[in-house]
């Protein structure tokens, strides 16, 4: 790998122990993928909460905090594992872990990280431009950045995004390279996509049988200009089921003015046609399990202000049924705005719990929380969420938004 004089100085410890550790790690990762160099970045998005880091990651981060490590580029934080709100008793975290989580937040702030605690930074924090290199540490944010903005980032998990934030660079492999961004799977959309869940279902249909980080689906046949929230669901689902980091929507996304431009000469390895019947088959594939207590969750990714507005309208004048719990997650910024706009009051009076700064599947102690509450089914309009939460042994069911609201308010599993 070719390193600049400054990068070599970092590697040799001339700029301190933290930068030495960070760049040494980046060089190892870059070598694995055959990266020729490091590329400067403008922005980083770090994922670090006590649930996923554990005591090992906590101790590791403490070392950087003690050395007063600082981020070189504007950096924000991903959704966390605790909402710090005692009013929602059924989701209580472990008190000892809560203390550590508060300490993690304070260490991140000391490292000059804006703790926005959001997995929708692309809607609320920073929108990189075409060709801009960033280092984002959440799959849904990565696929949105690459696909919708035409920015360039790989999945930067755990320490990887912290290292990039500190050095202001990242190894140039994967989606930082032009040739990797070309389409490889042709998808013809014949189905009419009416609901956010439909976009997630499309992501499952394409992602699940084609798990490959380097696969790039090219969608044709989109009739109406999709909203940001629809592309958010499509991307999050492709990333979750397919481990994919980029898609093209011909006529919509910036690197796909035409199908030919999207493929850029790369041969499509497969062609998928998606009809209305295919969408219905996704919904039919889920089965409800017998259980007296169940949850309906709107989360994964966090909700935008327009999703909050929509849900408030749907729940207005209604009540969550006995035996059901209903949860919504968003970030602090949207939570504040939704409070000011009255959406939260409407949701609360319907018995909906709104959590801030978290994503539902990230919650600490989730396996125990599920068992303590006796929850069996988890119903959501997020195709990502019904996939990511399964280690906690929920029976998960994907449904359209209107159906989710109906299930929450009637308790009838259908």
């Amino acid at each position, binding site marked *: 790998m070719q390193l600049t004089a400054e990068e070599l100085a970092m590697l040799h410890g001339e700029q301190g122990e933290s930068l030495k550790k960070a760049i040494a*790690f980046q060089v*190892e*990762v870059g*070598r*694995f*993928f*055959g990266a020729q160099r490091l590329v400067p970045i403008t922005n980083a998005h770090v*994922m*670090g909460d006590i649930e*996923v*880091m*554990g*005591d*090992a*990651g906590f101790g*590791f981060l403490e070392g950087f905090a003690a050395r007063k490590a600082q981020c070189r580029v504007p950096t924000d934080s991903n959704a966390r594992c605790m909402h710090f709100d005692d009013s929602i008793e059924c989701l209580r975290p472990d008190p000892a872990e809560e203390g550590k989580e508060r300490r993690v937040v304070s260490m991140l702030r000391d490292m000059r990280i804006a703790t926005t605690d959001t997995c929708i930074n692309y809607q609320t924090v920073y929108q990189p431009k075409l060709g801009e290199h960033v280092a984002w*540490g*959440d*799959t849904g944010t990565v696929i949105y950045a690459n696909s919708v903005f035409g920015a360039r980032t*790989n*999945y*930067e*998990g*755990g*320490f*990887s*995004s912290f290292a990039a934030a500190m050095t202001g660079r990242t190894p140039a*492999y*994967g989606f930082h390279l032009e040739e990797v961004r070309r389409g490889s799977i042709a998808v013809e959309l014949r189905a009419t996509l009416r609901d956010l869940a439909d976009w997630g279902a499309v992501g499952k249909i394409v992602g699940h049988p084609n*798990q*490959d*980080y*380097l696969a790039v689906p090219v969608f044709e046949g989109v009739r109406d200009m999709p909203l940001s929230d629809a592309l958010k669901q499509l991307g999050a689902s492709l*990333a*979750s*089921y397919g*481990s994919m*980091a980029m898609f093209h929507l011909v006529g919509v996304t910036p690197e796909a003015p035409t199908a030919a431009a999207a493929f850029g000469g790369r041969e499509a390895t497969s062609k998928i046609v998606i009809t209305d019947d295919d969408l219905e088959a996704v919904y039919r594939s889920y089965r409800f399990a017998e259980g007296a207590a169940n949850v309906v969750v709107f989360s994964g990714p966090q909700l935008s202000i327009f999703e909050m507005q929509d849900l408030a309208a749907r729940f207005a004048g209604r009540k969550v049924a006995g035996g059901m719990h209903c949860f919504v997650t968003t970030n602090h910024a949207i939570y504040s705005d939704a409070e000011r706009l009255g959406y939260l009051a409407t949701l609360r009076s319907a018995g909906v719990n709104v959590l801030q700064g978290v994503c539902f*599947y990230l919650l600490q102690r989730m*396996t125990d929380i599920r068992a303590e509450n006796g929850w069996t089914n988890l119903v959501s309009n997020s195709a990502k969420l019904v*996939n*990511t939460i*399964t*280690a*906690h*042994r929920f*029976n998960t069911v994907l449904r359209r938004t209107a159906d989710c609201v109906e299930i929450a308010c009637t308790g009838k599993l259908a």
Partner: protein
Amino acid sequence: MSRVIHVLRAWGRSVEGEALAMKEGFSPRYDLNRTTGTITRIGHSCEGQSIRGRILVIPTSKGGVAGGWAFYDLLEKGIAPLALVFGKLNPVMVQGAILADMPITEGWTEDALALIRTGDRLRIDPAGREITVL
């Protein structure tokens, strides 16, 4: 008789251990109870199996950025796998493995899933880009 499988990319020290072969993708967040080290996703081909000290043979990666921290955490908890052998992976698996000093390989010349059974003893030689079924 030992069989040798060549891999495309590899990192880490040489290790020898017992294989846990999966039929589908794997994510530490989606499939694993990270307190016990047991695979808990309902319907996973290795549901109920422990990953502790084993060489995981995995066709593809699923999701997710959790692996970036999770392997390091599993190591401290004493329930980490010994090494990761992937057909196709995403960078998070490499980032997580390097942080946890866990050998990792990607790609195979022969179908490793056809050659390796759960319980087989494997030697992983990242420098030589070779997996030997002992």
